[in-house]
């Protein structure tokens, strides 16, 4: 992984190009509206926009003032109003017509333009039409599909994808995913091979192929070789496990948003919060991000000592040497000093938080769940967690983990745990339970295997297409995670009696203290090793199928070592995943 870069690994493509493309298109859109204008930006779009353009760029293109979208009448001197925004939630759009109508009532007549990013939806335009302001308001699209968050991480920044697709069953983002793939393909392709698993991946793949066929093809030097598409719900266990490498902990505790984290005064040891970009440009962070937390302290103190030595060089310098030191090294040292003290502060603060909540015991329970060991003890631990009203999301996470690893809860456990959960955190969470059930994250065990039997029987009687539909209908009723069987088949849970040396990771399990190898990563490894799905039939069946592998025109040997680029609809963790399932606010 990120530790040792093998020499034969290829260079990473230059993804900053994607930013430039997005910026140019935004400027083009602004230029389409000559004259001074105000720009209203939806909160969700603020951080991504920050990564693309700065205020100066916007001002250069006649943007007068910048506002955050708040659904109230617009006080603005400019007669043109450009609004950039995400569509979701659509319900907020009911308020937009009010804005326009309020203007009209004042006898003002301003031009409004809504720029949707990354694409507009007919439903939204229909709403504008129904409200009688289609025409007063014009629309456009900012095809801002991909935001590079780091050298090798690209995000679609669509956190709503998960809920919309997996919970609501709305496929509105499928084509968006296809378009993002298309963009990646046309700039860095052609891809030599595409593998995938999951219904949504397959649809996104098809949508992309369609777009390729519609457009023209140019021959070019391929910078991306193999592509692997995977549905989030193929592997729900991984995001639900506690993270123990540095970056993961920072995300779980402080929340990384769009590659940025805000360290609270507690960390900065001053009275202000500081916003820090977390990527490979931050040299200190880059060295510890993938390290198990237990290794981080040692590393940081070593680093601090080195820094001290570097500073100490000053004593005994003559004036000339001092001059070189100040001009050449001091700035770097100061920068490093600043970063080092931030990360030390963050580590301390995380340590404090984690010891307070008995992190060790929590991890022990998680590991038992993954191993399928002492389940009754785990249940009483979860119960107590709920009873003591410790963090709700954490309780929910443990319940989901229990359900996923055990293929559902026994009906009596389900009833009792749900009851206690509602007592502790509020009865309105019965809506959350209904969502979790729908998604298959937290379910009751079905008596016997009736559904599976029925499925296969029905499947034999009718043709494939209908059977597919039926399977979908059934699977929403009883999604089985098959975690135990998958774990055995793919060796996801290393034997616990072996000592796991975290300093010398022997496999991907080190990111969970050696307790579990992420299913999604293991799948990719297996498929790349076999150059396809052959031999994994049993696994794909347990994962609900929809796997595919397509070879492109050019084909390269697989002898080279690989570099991985992660493209995601959004970077998630347990809290974000579960919070998107909450229904408890109006």
């Amino acid at each position, binding site marked *: 992984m990120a530790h040792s870069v093998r020499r034969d690994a290829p260079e990473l493509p230059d993804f900053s190009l994607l930013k430039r493309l997005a910026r140019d298109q935004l400027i083009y859109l602004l230029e389409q509206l000559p004259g001074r204008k105000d720009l209203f930006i939806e909160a969700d779009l603020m951080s991504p926009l920050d990564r693309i353009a700065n205020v100066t760029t916007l001002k250069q293109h006649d943007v007068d003032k910048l506002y955050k979208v708040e659904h109230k009448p617009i006080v603005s001197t400019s007669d043109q109003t450009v609004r950039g925004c995400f569509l979701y*939630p*659509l*319900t907020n759009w*009911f308020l937009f017509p009010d804005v326009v109508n309020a203007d009209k009532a004042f006898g003002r*007549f301003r*031009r409004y333009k809504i720029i949707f990013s990354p*694409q507009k*939806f*007919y*439903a939204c335009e*229909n*709403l504008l039409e129904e409200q*009688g302001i*289609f*025409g*007063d308001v*014009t*629309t*456009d*699209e900012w095809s801002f599909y991909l935001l590079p968050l780091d050298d090798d991480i690209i995000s679609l920044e669509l956190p709503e994808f998960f809920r*919309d697709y997996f919970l*609501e*069953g*709305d*496929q*509105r*983002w*499928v*084509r968006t995913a296809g378009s993002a793939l298309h963009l990646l393909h046309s700039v860095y392709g052609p891809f030599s091979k595409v593998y995938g698993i999951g219904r949504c991946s397959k*649809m996104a793949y*098809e*949508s992309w192929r*369609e777009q390729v066929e*519609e457009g023209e093809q140019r021959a070019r030097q391929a910078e991306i070789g193999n592509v692997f598409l995977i549905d989030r719900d193929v592997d729900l266990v991984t995001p639900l496990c506690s993270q123990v490498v540095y970056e993961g902990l920072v995300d779980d505790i402080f929340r990384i948003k769009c590659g940025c984290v805000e360290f609270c005064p507690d960390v900065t040891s001053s009275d202000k919060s500081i916003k820090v970009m977390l990527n490979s440009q931050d040299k200190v962070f880059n060295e510890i991000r993938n390290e198990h937390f237990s290794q981080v302290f040692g590393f940081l103190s070593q680093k601090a000592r080195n820094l001290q030595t570097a500073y100490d060089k000053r004593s005994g310098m003559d004036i000339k040497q001092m001059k070189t030191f100040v001009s050449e090294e001091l700035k770097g040292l100061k920068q490093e000093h600043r970063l080092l003290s931030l990360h030390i502060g963050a580590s301390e603060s995380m340590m404090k938080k984690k010891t307070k909540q008995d992190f060790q015991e929590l991890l022990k329970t998680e590991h038992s769940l993954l191993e399928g060991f002492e389940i009754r003890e785990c249940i009483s631990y979860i*119960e*107590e967690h709920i*009873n*003591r*009203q410790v963090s709700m999301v954490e309780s929910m996470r443990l319940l989901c983990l229990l359900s996923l690893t055990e293929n559902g809860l026994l009906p009596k456990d389900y*009833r009792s745990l*749900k*009851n*206690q959960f*509602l*007592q*502790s*955190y*509020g*009865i*309105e969470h*019965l*809506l959350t339970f*209904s969502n979790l059930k729908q998604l298959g994250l937290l379910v009751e065990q079905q008596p016997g295997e009736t559904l599976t039997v029925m499925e296969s029987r029905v499947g034999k009687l009718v043709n494939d297409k209908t059977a597919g*539909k039926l399977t*979908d*209908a059934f699977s929403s009723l009883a999604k089985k995670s098959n975690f135990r069987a998958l774990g055995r088949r793919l060796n996801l849970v290393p034997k616990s009696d072996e000592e796991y040396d975290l300093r010398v990771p022997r496999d991907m399990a080190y990111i969970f203290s050696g307790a579990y190898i992420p299913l999604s990563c293991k799948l990719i490894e297996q498929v790349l090793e076999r150059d396809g799905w052959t031999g994994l039939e049993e696994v794909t069946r347990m994962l609900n199928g929809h796997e595919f592998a397509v070879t492109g025109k050019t084909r390269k040997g697989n002898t080279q070592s690989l570099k991985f680029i992660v493209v995601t609809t959004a970077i998630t963790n347990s809290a974000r995943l579960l919070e998107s399932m909450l*229904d*408890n*606010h*109006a």
Partner: protein
Amino acid sequence: MIRGKPDEDDYWNNSKFKAFTFDDEDDDFTRLKESKRAVNSIRSLVEEEDEEDDVEKVSWSGEPVGSISWSVKETESSIRSTGEVRDQSFPKIHTAPSLPKNSSGYSLSSLFKGKAKTGSFQSFSESFGDPSIRNYAPELRKPKSEYKDYVSDWTPEETVKRMQQGKVYSLEKFRSLQDKLLLLDEAVNAHDGNVITAVLIYLKKSLSKEILFRELITREIALRHYIHYLKEIGEQKLLVELFKSMDRTEDMALMQYRDHLNVRDENKRRDFLKNCLSFPFSPDDATHVQDHYTLLERQIIIEANDKQVESSGQADIFKKYPRKASILNMPIITTLYYSCFYHYGESDGTFSSPANIRKTFRISDKQFLLTCLGARAKLKAWFDVDALFTTKNWLGYTKKRSPIGFHRIVDILQKNNAPVQVLQDYVNLVEDVEQKISLAQKYKCHDVIINTYRDLKDRQQLIVYRGKVERSSSEYRKIEEILSNSQLRWKN
């Protein structure tokens, strides 16, 4: 050619323009309309100049300008030109074929021949940038339907494809139920939720809901899009009908229940919840909703009472520990904690008493103990804490018992800053010796450690521990005493 004849040209340039005197027309709007109309015909006029001349030759031989052959030609050209304008990206759809009463002017456009090529086109593009033109845009649907017979003979597949690409499309020609469903199925096959929803919006407008619901039952994917769409635009009533027609009564109940979150006023919310009781929830959820209603009803009573007591300054507890927030809409356990904090010892009959809450909401022993312990420990009411665990057996001896391990109890007490004297009583009750010692060490309960080592007859450990305490302390003296006790038979 006829064109060469000067007198004919003269006739064109003079009589036709004069007849309509457009040049003198200064009404902006009229000019606008006319220039648009003109532009629609430019293409045909430019391309078919020669043919047109042939036709005109005929017409000048006696055929009136408004005759059938004229109209047909005009219609053809207008199809072509509209087709072209409509091919632009889709936001322009409503502005392009936007001529009110377009149909009335077919024959007139030919009269523009001379001027249209230059002047009118310009005014068209100018007018496009004019904000006032947008006012007319939304109402300009009529011409489109009039063109229906000629354009948009797109198959469902083509239509869906055009929609995906953001091109102009028309759904109005999908009128038979069969066509509508073909279109819907095609959208579903294209896996584009945006288009699926767009088609559903059209079906919603053009089909009765009974028919639409019926067809959606067998179309799971489309159905889910429809439900999501209705949720987003907040069409509750329709959703209720939909769920009802599909016998998804639990979904319906939950969705209606969800609405209580929008009710801010607590009394209205309580009434809303009361109304929810009759919804067809699953048996388990029905109990929960009943609890929800009961809980809020009680919270309202407790809140009103306590607010009044607090402000009147009658009760010490409120003076000493002013309430930080209202109890309304808090979970059951928080309510129980509140009640253990402010209403401890009240008789079972009152709504605010811990015992009453425990009974009403069927709170487990374990849960009750944990909550109560937290509240009493917070108040440093160690006597109450003690009483929670004390049971008497039939001989009258008292014994401490707990449904949860005492190591947990210690943990909770410690988090509430219990003094060592209190803590060590509970550390002593931990059964597992190793756990007991580690807890005792963690919380510095020296007596427990020393006594345990003594009971274990572990001289070595005791000696080690002597090194850890201060020489002048009472612990040190105690260890010395034990070590010098010749009665003890050490194991090491």
